[in-house]
């Protein structure tokens, strides 16, 4: 409670100061003189206990002479903006009465063409008032200077108010999007330097008022951001207008409208690429799935994408130029050739494109990769003169799959299988050949070893041009073994090596 009172007290004091400040600069000055260089209000027969006469008479030497130090106009006319100070019983040699009496017909007035007076009878004029003269009573009274009687004629002059003027208005930004607030700036001037200027704004979206009236106290002559229309209050295509005016607590300007603006389409955001990774020097997928992260759109428009893939670092002359891609990926439909590729993507919201992504590159390199589907062929225990091979699938042959991205030639060698001198390598006791697998036509039949050939310790070609496409990249390698007559009956083993290289 104490705090509340304290705040209230401070508030009242503050307001009082404001009010006082409005009057403390009273620029009216009135004196009893014998020669008046300013405005002659009326005359008195002496400085004290005097009779009075109107200013247009010349019987008395003492003149109530007023001027305004700020140069405001002061007159003694009883028309226009004026105050009646006293009534006189006659034009001259007259008694006076207060202006709320009605016994006399001759008025003493103080007037102005550019300001107004506020006059009253007081026992003493306040600091913001100027004493004109004093009177002895309410009627049939004598007049004297301000020190003569207790009833003083106190006046204060205030210049007439001039309405403020809006000298500049501007909205920003020039192009309005759904993710940008719309700002109104005003510059207001008021010749009444003491006036408090308030600027007002009311926004309209599609002709309907949006939000409450905005008001802001602005500095005289200063460009001020008066109000903002939040982007959340309008959509793409909406028309925006701001109605604005200003006031000085006495008078308002007329109301004005800004130029209508239409909320523009916001282009989609820049796309960020994700795969193939930038600057991958060992990229091997010839039908890559180009991935990127989804762009955003301030208007929530449905987005499609454009992708360009080129051999040129600036992505000019693209080999791939796909528009209308509805996913955040694009799968290369045909195999790319080996080269360095540069690619970029941008989003489209059906009205316009967003900015291109950064340009990424990858180096598509040939790759040879071989899978042997089993690591061992075991013919079991074999006896003298026994012959066995894998053509009947007992045991199963080796199967070779080209898992690379280019055609491969396969050659084979082996360590010695038999200990017999008759059955060393390069003899018919240990042979090989290539054959079709379940994926026929996987290799170049003519340039492959499709009839039995003797195994050797140096590489011999077995398959020419093994395809790499998934449905045709599998070949069988048959092995044939024969036990020589002098082969000792112990376990035998050999290591066979398949060597693969690019065709």
């Amino acid at each position, binding site marked *: 409670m104490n705090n509340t009172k304290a705040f209230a007290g401070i508030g009242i004091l503050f307001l009082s100061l404001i009010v006082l400040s409005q009057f403390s600069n009273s620029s009216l000055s009135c004196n009893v003189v014998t020669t008046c260089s300013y405005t002659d209000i009326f005359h008195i027969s002496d400085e004290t206990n005097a009779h009075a006469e109107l200013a247009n008479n010349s019987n008395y030497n003492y003149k109530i002479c007023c001027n305004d130090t700020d140069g405001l106009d002061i007159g003694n006319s009883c028309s226009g903006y004026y105050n009646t100070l006293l009534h006189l019983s006659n034009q001259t040699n007259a008694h006076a009465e207060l202006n709320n009496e009605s016994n006399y017909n001759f008025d003493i007035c103080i007037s102005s063409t550019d300001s107004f007076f506020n006059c009253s009878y007081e026992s003493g004029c306040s600091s913001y008032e100027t004493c004109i003269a004093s009177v002895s009573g309410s009627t049939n009274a004598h007049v004297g200077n301000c020190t003569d009687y207790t009833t003083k004629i106190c006046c204060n002059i205030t210049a007439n108010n001039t309405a403020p003027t809006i000298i500049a208005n501007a909205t920003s930004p020039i192009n309005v999007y759904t993710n940008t607030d719309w700002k109104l700036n005003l510059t207001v001037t008021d010749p009444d330097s003491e006036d408090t200027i308030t600027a007002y704004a009311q926004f309209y979206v599609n002709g309907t008022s949006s939000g409450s009236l905005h008001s802001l106290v602005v500095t005289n002559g200063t460009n001020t951001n008066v109000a903002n229309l939040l982007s959340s209050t309008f959509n793409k295509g909406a028309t925006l207008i701001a109605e604005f005016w200003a006031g000085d607590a006495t008078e308002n300007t007329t109301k004005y409208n800004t130029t209508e603006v239409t909320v523009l389409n916001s282009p989609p955001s820049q796309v960020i690429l994700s795969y193939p990774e930038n600057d991958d020097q060992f990229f091997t997928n010839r039908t890559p799935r180009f991935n990127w992260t989804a762009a955003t759109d301030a208007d929530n428009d449905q987005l499609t994408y454009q992708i360009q893939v080129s051999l040129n670092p600036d992505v000019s002359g693209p080999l791939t130029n796909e528009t209308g891609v509805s996913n955040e990926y694009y799968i290369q439909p045909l195999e790319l050739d080996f080269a360095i590729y540069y690619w970029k993507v941008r989003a489209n919201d059906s009205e316009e494109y967003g900015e291109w992504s950064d340009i990424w590159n990858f180096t598509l390199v040939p790759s040879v*990769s071989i899978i042997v589907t*089993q690591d061992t062929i075991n013919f079991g225990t074999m006896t003298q003169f026994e012959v066995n091979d894998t053509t009947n699938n007992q045991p199963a042959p080796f199967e070779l799959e080209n898992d690379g991205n280019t055609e491969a030639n396969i050659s084979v060698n082996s360590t010695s299988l038999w200990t017999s001198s008759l059955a060393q390598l390069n003899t018919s006791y240990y042979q090989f050949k290539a054959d079709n697998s379940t994926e026929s036509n996987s290799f170049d039949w003519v340039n492959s070893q499709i009839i039995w050939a003797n195994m050797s310790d140096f590489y011999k070609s077995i398959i020419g041009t093994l395809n790499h496409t998934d449905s045709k990249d599998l070949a069988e390698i048959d092995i044939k073994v024969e036990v020589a007559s002098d082969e000792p009956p112990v376990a035998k*083993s050999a290591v066979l090596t*398949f*060597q*693969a290289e690019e065709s």
Partner: protein
Amino acid sequence: MKLKPILLIIIIFVLASQTYALGIAPSSSDVIFEPRLEKTIQIKVINNVHKDFDAVVYAEGTLAEYITIENPTISLSKDQDSKIISYRLNLPKKLKKQGIHEAKIVVREIPKKTKGGTTITTAVAIVSKLKVIVPYKGKYAEIKLFVTNFKQNKESNFAVEVINLGTQDILEAKAVIDIYGPLNNKLETITSDKTSVKSKDKEILTVKWTPRLGSGSYHAVATLLYDDLNTKDEKSFTIGKLKLDIVSISVTGFKLGGIAKFDILVENDWNMEIPGVYAETTVKDDNGKIYTQFKTASADIPDFGKQELNAYWDTAKVIPGAYKFDIILNYLNQKTEKVFDIIVEYDKITATLVGKVISAEEEEKPALVKSVYILIFLVVILIIFNIFIYFKKIRK
């Protein structure tokens, strides 16, 4: 407890049938010769079946003496997809023969221990070729043609990569691309802008083209004309996408209870005959109940032509009504599917593609509805007849 031996057997079986695999990239690299060139080249060893293995790395071939392998033995664990290895190339001041000199960088897996019996165990070795090209005296260029999957009436580009493997600069080069149809008939010729190519340098020539040809496979032959010399490269390419369309189905001469013969008209918008096309058809009702399935005979659909496939349906136990006729066309590892609504009546079957609006003239009441009307009519007649008989008996 009895599960343990079984589990052990399974594990042994899995291990015994382990696959062997190894990959390398790039499987070939080109270097243009420069005297005393020193260069470190990286290759990627790919562990494509994710297993633990050791391998030796060595160089062989005529350039082997100029190659130093940084790590002659490598190990990869099953958690590693790949490993980058390097070798250093230190070329001599001069290589006598101009043209290609080759070395092989071999990565050979070290085989595991062999097993008992008469066993042959495999190991895999892979090769990355290094081609050092000594520039040819004078002017010599090689080109590589890049094609794309063109679309009808949409501009796209051919690209021709020009490598100057000669000792002299090429002052003026342009690419001329001839486009051939399936019968090797030249259809169009397009030309690139001119360019110059410095010795040992590379340029990309782009040739814009808007195909006005039908969908299909074509062949492009690029010829680089340079300073009174020329060289060629060629590639096949496609315009559009291979796809067969089911144009319509119709049934003629139908009587309910007999065999309905569906004529399925298939259109080929490709510039080559599509061989071995067949359809798999299924008749079902709205609830998914299948009434019949049929596989048609294969047919070859001519280029830019149409061909009928015939499917049959024994309607002996079929009641009139609405059904769905599902057709899946099979051709060149592709499929095209269409579903038709069919209305079976006593003397005809009409078909409409699912989703297609039936025109006013075509709009008829379904046979089933018709049948219901007929039945109601017959029942009413019977009731009247019975009432008539009843009153007649009463009178008697």
